[in-house]
């Protein structure tokens, strides 16, 4: 490929970095997508301060009255708290078992992988209604329903069931993402760790884990939002721990009021705060190999 372009035969005036068209195009596109994703959020925030009685229809600025109402509405408040708890619990479960399975799939392949992948596919293919209903009958038909019915360690049975129900799909997602990340990631790094005397568990924690941190973070974020959004499974197993989406689903007999927006915004803010605190704490934890946030930032 010859580079003879007439314009560049004379010495350029100043040091111009070449335009990375790809960068600008993808950046512009990404911002458009982010704006697309954000538009509704903006309206949710605005309409949560609607002075009218309907969430969708703007009447006038009503300040924070729906927030105040929300906070005095015990049942609605409880659903927000439950949603949050369910999301944390199921995310922890999903990330833990999903990460382990993802690692095993890539690093310890064997005949079992096929069986497992099929199971994984089944977990994902199964409609949530079925997950929900079969879990419900499973928990209550079988003899072992104690912890799932009344709860253990002060955790309600419903919450435990939510964790289980929500974690099914999420953990499959985490598994796939972790697998996608580890495939092709240099195995010699883990060998180097073993060579330097790190037993598998430690090598995993100190080398593999930080290297797959982006996958874990991505998986965790997705799991969290799945759980926050889950209606169908929750509607079956949630029972003594009703969640915010369930409340929303239940409002079919009446109008959607701005308190729904206020609830969304509150949950949103709390989640955001939680995410930032988590990232902060992970970054602070000092141990370089546990520096997940920095790793994701640095690739």
């Amino acid at each position: 490929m010859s580079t003879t372009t007439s314009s560049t035969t004379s010495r350029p005036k100043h040091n111009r970095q070449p335009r990375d068209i790809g960068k600008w195009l993808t950046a512009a596109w990404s911002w458009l997508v982010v704006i697309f994703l954000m538009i509704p959020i903006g309206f949710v925030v605005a309409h949560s301060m609607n002075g009218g009685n309907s969430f969708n229809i703007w009447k006038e600025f009503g300040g924070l009255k729906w927030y105040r109402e929300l906070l005095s509405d015990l049942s609605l408040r409880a659903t927000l708290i439950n949603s949050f708890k369910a999301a944390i619990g199921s995310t922890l479960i999903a990330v833990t078992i999903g990460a382990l399975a993802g690692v095993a799939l890539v690093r310890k392949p064997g005949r079992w992988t096929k069986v497992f992948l099929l199971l994984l596919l089944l977990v994902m293919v199964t409609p949530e209604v079925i997950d929900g209903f079969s879990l419900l009958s499973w928990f209550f038909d079988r003899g072992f329903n104690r912890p799932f019915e009344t709860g253990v360690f002060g955790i309600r049975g419903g919450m435990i069931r939510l964790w289980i129900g929500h974690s099914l799909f999420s953990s499959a997602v985490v598994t796939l993402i972790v697998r996608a990340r580890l495939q092709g990631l240099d195995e010699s790094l883990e060998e180097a760790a073993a060579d330097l005397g790190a037993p598998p568990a430690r090598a995993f924690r100190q080398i593999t884990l930080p290297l797959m941190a982006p996958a874990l973070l991505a998986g965790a974020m997705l799991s969290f939002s799945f759980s926050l959004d889950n209606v169908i499974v929750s509607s079956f197993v949630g029972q003594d721990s009703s969640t915010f989406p369930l409340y929303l689903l239940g409002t079919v007999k009446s109008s959607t009021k701005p308190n729904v927006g206020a609830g969304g915004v509150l949950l949103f803010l709390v989640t955001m705060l939680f995410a930032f605190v988590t990232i902060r704490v992970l970054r602070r934890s000092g141990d370089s190999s546990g520096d997940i946030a920095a790793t994701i930032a640095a690739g």
Partner: protein
Amino acid sequence: MNIRGDNVSQSTKPASDDDVSFGERGSVELTGVTKRFGSMIAVDNLDLIVQPGEFLSLLGPSGCGKTTTLRMLAGFEQPDEGYIRISGQYVQGIPAYQRDVNTVFQAYALFPHMTVAENVAYGLRQKHVNKSQISTRVAEALDMVKMTKLANRKPRQMSGGQQQRVALARALVNRPSVLLLDEPLGALDRKLREEMQIELKLLQSQLGITFIFVTHDQEEAMGMSNRIAIMLEGHVEQLADPETVYERPASAFVAGFIGRNNFWKGIASSEGIVASDGTIFVASKPEVRVPAGEQALAAVRPECFVITSTDPQLTHNVATGTVASVSHFGDTLQYVVHTGARDVVALLPRAQAPRVAPGDPVWCHWSADDVYSFGAAQADLVLVDPADAEALR
């Protein structure tokens, strides 16, 4: 006495030591080790015994199985056949992290998310060495490889040579009983390389660590090693001390691989080996006696020729031809002489160099002490020699 191929293990038992030493910390023993990748045999029935505290170099052509051998010792690959003992212990099934062995990886394998210092500290942290001691030892190791200034860099922000030095420091700092080094100095400039060689040697003798050292630099191997193992296609061709390998190569391959050699193909006879153009090679120390009438190889090193512009009147160990080229290499001159059978490459110190120009007729002769003779089995491996190739152009 050097024995080739399958029964190398016999010759590898050094006379100075007896078997007791193989139980000692730092001894390494491979017996009949074979490793296959699919149908491809990477390591082929390999026998090798390394003494505790020995500095053993592995030399061999690209792809001959050096890295694979080290990987089996470190525990990343399991031999398909054969046994490995380290410090007297059979290591089948012992995972890498429980072997008191450290590796300098050919491709470095630095942890990208850790700084240089953290990389180096990693092994010590595994052993729960206390913090202050870790600092001291890491600082020492970094100082040795001259990387102290870059201690806080991430691997991706460093040059190839800098990365290699970190890889070296990371393995060294642990002072294992066996250290496996896979071309650990290949990316360093000569000066730094020599400094590192000295440091390594010193460390090795001070701490009594067994070094198994892969290198492509023959001088390095010669200068540093107690013994050198020359590998070919997954097995050890010769295992001996540097001088023996150079002076008494066990096979034509070794003779051609270590240093340079001019090879002639001929027929063994009672007089000696007779090349196609009638040149007769008489050897004073035939390593391998070839039965008369069979094909044989004769070899003479470039440094061993005397070149004269007058006929030295010899009946054997002489070849005549015309000068094809003369080149200067510092204080040595290289002559390529076009003879009947082949182009001869000769290296002579300036003092002994004859004043001849390309086209002049010359006689090359050599002493019987400098003739190696071998069977013709490896003729294909050695006859297409860089010198030949060069001469053909």
